[in-house]
């Protein structure tokens, strides 16, 4: 086919995840077959689609029940919040097509009459959806393959003549059972085939869904986990294969400055952090500190625990100065605890999804994510762990997950859930045993897109929360515990000595400076005096020169060598006055 000019019209089922898998829902004006073993979810799928059609689009529907009585079906659906009994009064019609055991069968029968009834009912309530649930039960009653095929044809013709928006046929067909030859034919007749499966893995029931055929439409191939919650079935559709997460440059504090510094300023907003370590290495404490810090910033936070109930966690953390309770009270922090053995890994995923939808957190903790490997197979757990982290990242939630290692080597995590490969930051906590002490050591194994310390630090838990102790290296080893204290004492002594030496030296230098200043002052004084003397000396000398020139003129006048001038007398007077002024200055 070249170019899709007219995409196949589809009807959304409203079943979370399925409409994504099918790229829009069920084919409009076509028939869909749901096949699968008993208890695999066919009926729930069909009923939920019907209920959603009524509730969301006011489209009425007919449910033909061949296998269970109407009463049973409504009772089974009571655990979902669909309000089925109310819908069954006007918008949904249930046809009890279960043949009572008292009915005697004698010879062949056909569905002509039933289809006539359905047609009448369809017109009466204006039904636009129809479900034939458990058609296999009906076909078995026909006792004859030819009759089965004939009746399937009859239904097909009826559907063709009675325009409905969507028709769903469910049939109990196990994947590889060849007993029902005609089911091949049923599959051929319908436009969309969805396979359901329920299987036990390690004692936990896992539900799967797979679209095996969709005529004229693209769909997401492969089987996907299904789980059941309050609002019905939910399919865990895969995340888009292209990883598209906006890279944030905003830093989020982990809660203590030293760790932030080691991480080059904190965690990136929307990044994922893995904390690994054997039991007792304070993974929860670290995660709790992160949660508390997020709440203090006023960010909504979700704390998921697979280990303990919320109450003991809050109590234990408060002993190391981490207070979660006030934030739970204020509604900022939501704590969710769940046992991991009881339900499958996918169910956790679905529950967490809805928790995230409800609480809309900006920060999240999962402690420990490794617990989901307890339920169901390892493959499933691994896939769930991956999807969980991608899901959280898709929503730009900054997440810290913890994982328990079996050994003290961080590498063992790599063989476990393999979260380390997708986590942005990986912090490993371990015990270092030296000199008869067990101390907690923190290492940042990786931190994408940021500088980070390559040094092992000691994690110290005080009653004001965790801190990272200063690092001392001696002989290429980080010193911890007592060794660190000894080293610290040594350092302290050295510091005191250095300070004393410094103070002494400074005193000496200050004294010398003062002395020099005094000397400068004295010299300055001398300089001023000498200048003054020089000035006095100069003016006396001048006066002498002037008076001697006066005398010469006087002598000349006496000798009558020159004519007499009055001015010369004045000049002599001024000379006398000058002499007096100079003397005053001196």
């Amino acid at each position, binding site marked *: 086919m070249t170019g899709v000019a007219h995409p196949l019209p589809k009807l959304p089922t409203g079943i979370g995840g399925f409409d994504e898998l099918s790229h829009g829902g069920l084919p409009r004006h076509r028939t869909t077959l749901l096949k699968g073993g008993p208890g695999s979810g066919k009926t729930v799928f069909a009923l939920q689609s019907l209920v959603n059609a009524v509730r969301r689009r006011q489209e009425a529907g007919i449910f033909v029940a061949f296998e269970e009585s109407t009463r049973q079906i409504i009772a089974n659906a009571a655990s979902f919040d669909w309000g089925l009994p109310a819908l069954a009064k006007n918008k949904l019609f249930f046809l009890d*097509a279960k043949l009572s055991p008292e*009915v005697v069968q004698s*010879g*062949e*029968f056909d*569905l002509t*009459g039933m289809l006539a*009834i359905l047609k009448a009912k369809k017109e009466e309530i204006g039904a636009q959806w129809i479900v034939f649930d458990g058609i296999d039960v009906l076909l078995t009653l026909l006792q004859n393959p030819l009759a089965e095929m004939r009746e399937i044809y009859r239904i097909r013709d009826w559907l063709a003549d009675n325009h409905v928006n969507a028709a769903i046929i469910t049939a109990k067909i196990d994947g590889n059972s060849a007993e029902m030859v005609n089911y091949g034919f049923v599959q051929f007749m319908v436009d969309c085939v969805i396979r359901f499966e329920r299987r036990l893995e390690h004692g936990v029931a896992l539900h799967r869904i797979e679209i095996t055929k969709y005529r004229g439409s693209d769909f997401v191939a492969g089987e996907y986990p299904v789980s059941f919650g309050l609002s019905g079935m939910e399919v865990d559709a895969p995340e888009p294969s292209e990883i598209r997460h906006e890279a944030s440059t905003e830093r989020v504090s982990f809660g203590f400055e030293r760790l932030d510094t080691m991480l080059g300023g904190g965690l990136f907003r929307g990044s994922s952090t893995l904390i690994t370590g054997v039991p007792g290495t304070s993974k929860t404490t670290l995660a709790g500190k992160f949660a508390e810090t997020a709440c203090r910033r006023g960010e909504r936070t979700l704390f998921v625990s697979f280990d303990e109930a919320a109450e003991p966690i809050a109590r234990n953390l408060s002993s190391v100065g981490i207070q979660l309770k006030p934030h739970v009270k204020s509604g900022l922090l939501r704590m969710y605890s769940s046992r991991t053995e009881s339900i499958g890994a996918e169910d956790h995923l679905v529950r967490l999804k809805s928790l995230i939808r409800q609480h809309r957190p900006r920060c999240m903790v999962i402690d420990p994510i490794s617990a989901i490997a307890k339920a169901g197979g390892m493959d499933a757990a691994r896939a769930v762990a991956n999807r969980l982290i991608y899901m959280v990242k898709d929503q730009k939630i900054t997440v810290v997950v913890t994982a328990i290692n079996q050994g003290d080597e961080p590498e063992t995590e790599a063989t476990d859930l393999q979260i380390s490969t997708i986590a942005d930051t990986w912090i490993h906590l371990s015990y270092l045993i030296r000199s008869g002490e067990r101390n907690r050591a923190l290492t940042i194994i990786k931190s994408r897109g940021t500088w980070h310390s390559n040094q092992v630090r000691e994690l110290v838990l005080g009653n004001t929360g965790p801190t990272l102790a200063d690092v001392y290296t001696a002989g290429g080893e980080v010193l911890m515990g007592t060794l660190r204290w000894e080293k610290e004492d040594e350092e302290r002594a050295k510091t005191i000595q250095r300070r004393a030496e410094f103070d002494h030296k400074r005193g000496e230098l200050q004294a010398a400076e003062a002395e020099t200043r005094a000397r400068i002052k004295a010299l300055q004084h001398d300089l001023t005096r000498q200048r003054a003397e020089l000035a006095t000396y100069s003016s006396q000398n001048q006066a002498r020169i002037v008076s001697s020139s006066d005398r010469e003129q006087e002598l000349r006048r006496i000798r009558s060598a020159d004519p007499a001038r009055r001015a010369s007398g004045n000049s002599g007077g001024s000379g006398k006055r000058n002499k007096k002024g100079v003397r005053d200055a001196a």
Partner: protein
Amino acid sequence: MRPKKAKNRRSSPAVVAVVVMRLYIADNAPNSIKAIANLEAICKEHLQDSFKLEIIDVLEFPLRALADGILVTPSLAKISPSPAAKVVGNLSDRSSVLHALGIKE
């Protein structure tokens, strides 16, 4: 022409109680035609005239059939004498029909 809606045959006074039956058919569908023929033969042979049969075409009266609890065609409902009974199919298995109607072979 087949009887479509109702057909009564009065029997001569007899000790046996009158068997009241309804046969639900789908117009001239092959199984429906067979059922009528089979039932008429059974009645003729075993009930003579002591029965009352109503034939209802579901295609014509679907909602009535629904109200009567009819699903597939053909279906035979024995109303009285009690116990009531229901037989589905073209009634080709005569002994099971007789058993359901409470008639000894």
